[in-house]
């Protein structure tokens, strides 16, 4: 199934290659379950492109973050997107970082991507993975110490288990069949609601413990396609001095507060922040809360309608109850 889509993907790219500057997609990484982004610039490299549930990365950041591939006049950059990734693209268009006519969007419906850590956790001992294959909703891993078979659902990333936009919301071409979401839209924030039923003390304790693991590597920030400050994030700068270098929870929390509040009303819940965290901190959960808030207060979902202005960058004089 995945190889078929991969084949179609390669064919599609073959066809559009003459009109595009480059194609941003995925290729195999250092083993079967680790995929990495690739920028295809010449036809000979098209065969590198793959699609499978290990294609975890949201590639849309590469469209805007320096040094980005900028298309020459009259040409476009092609990008492969999953459902969640497509919302990031829309959000970037919304905020004026991208022009729709400068990109060619290859949409791929996605039924969930795999958390490699969850796979590794299933193995007796970490060891070399020889082969990984997904069949009938199960992952079969052949590794140096034996063979492991795991139901796919058990190793999906948390973001995928709560995905309601598995199909690209914007695209120039779609490859693969439309898939149905794992959950209903009204259940989107049930984790948030459940968490909010805990006492304030419990919540505070949870974040104190969880965030104390943070090593401030800023992977969550840099992987976020909408964290557009890049090299000039105030969490790192001395002027203005918002955050100190002190290894205290206060400074860590402040960094995450900056990250989250800067994304309030902008986050498309692609979950990259959480996926890339080497310390397995549920970074997206903070943003889920803010999205729940902006949805409730402003009926706004980021990255759906490219004509809308994010709610905190505009106002409504007639708003009551605020």
């Amino acid at each position: 199934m995945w190889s078929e889509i991969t084949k179609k993907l390669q064919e599609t790219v073959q066809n559009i290659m003459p009109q595009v500057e480059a194609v941003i997609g995925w290729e195999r990484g250092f083993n079967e379950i680790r995929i990495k982004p690739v920028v295809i610039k010449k036809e000979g490299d098209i065969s590198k492109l793959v699609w499978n549930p290990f294609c975890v990365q949201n590639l849309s950041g590469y469209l805007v973050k320096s040094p980005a591939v900028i298309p020459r006049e009259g040409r476009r950059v092609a990008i492969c997107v999953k459902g969640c990734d497509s919302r990031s693209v829309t959000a970037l268009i919304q905020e004026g970082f991208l022009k729709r006519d400068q990109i060619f969007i290859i949409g791929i419906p996605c039924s969930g991507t795999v958390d490699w850590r969850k796979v590794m956790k299933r193995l007796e001992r970490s060891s070399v993975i020889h082969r990984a294959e997904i069949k009938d909703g199960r992952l079969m891993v052949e590794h140096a110490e034996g063979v492991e078979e795991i139901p796919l659902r058990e190793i999906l990333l948390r973001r995928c288990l709560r995905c309601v936009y598995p199909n690209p919301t914007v695209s120039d071409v779609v490859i693969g069949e439309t898939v149905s979401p794992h959950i209903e839209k009204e259940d989107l924030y049930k984790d948030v609601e459940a968490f909010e039923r805990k006492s304030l003390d419990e919540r505070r304790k949870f974040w104190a413990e969880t965030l104390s693991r943070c090593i401030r590597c800023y992977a969550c920030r840099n992987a976020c396609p909408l964290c557009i400050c890049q090299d000039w994030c105030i969490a790192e700068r001395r002027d203005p001095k918002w955050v100190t270098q002190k290894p205290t929870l206060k400074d860590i929390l402040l960094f995450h507060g900056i990250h989250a509040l800067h994304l309030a009303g902008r986050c498309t819940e692609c979950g990259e922040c959480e996926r890339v965290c080497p310390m397995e901190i549920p970074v997206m959960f903070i943003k889920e809360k803010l999205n729940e808030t902006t949805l409730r207060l402003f009926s706004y979902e980021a990255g759906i309608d490219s004509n809308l202005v994010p709610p905190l960058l505009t106002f409504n004089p007639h708003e009551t109850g605020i």
Partner: protein
Amino acid sequence: MEEREKTKNNTEMRILGFLCNWCSYGGADTAGVSRLKQPTDLRIIRIPCTGRMDPLFAFKALISGADGVLVSGCHPKDCHYSVGNLYARRRFEVLKDFLPFLGIESDRFHYTWVSASEGQRWQEVVTEFSRRIHELGRNPGFDMNTNLVNSEAR
């Protein structure tokens, strides 16, 4: 922190007020001119407009040991800069909704509108907010200054 001395009765709370220069700061002045008595916990920071108020100021204050943060500006549609407070109120509302998720009481952050003429209203706002913060007590916050990496006691 070490200078966070307390008054005799040990009850003073750490409350920050961010007041816009045009309305609420004037309103607080009006209250003063009218000798309207108020609790003494509040410390006012003058900002040009509530639109200047990055919610992160309040956020930083609240995770740094403030027991309460009060923001006050011109009434909606009466902003000296016409729309600053309309942007601001959205941002404040989001922050207010967000704080409890981290375990900080929503009531520790309050925003309101007081015009330069409303000295009495200012008195009421300060009195009520101070009362609420006293009711909530010290902001337990996080164990903020724990040095995480050097910590060997975990």
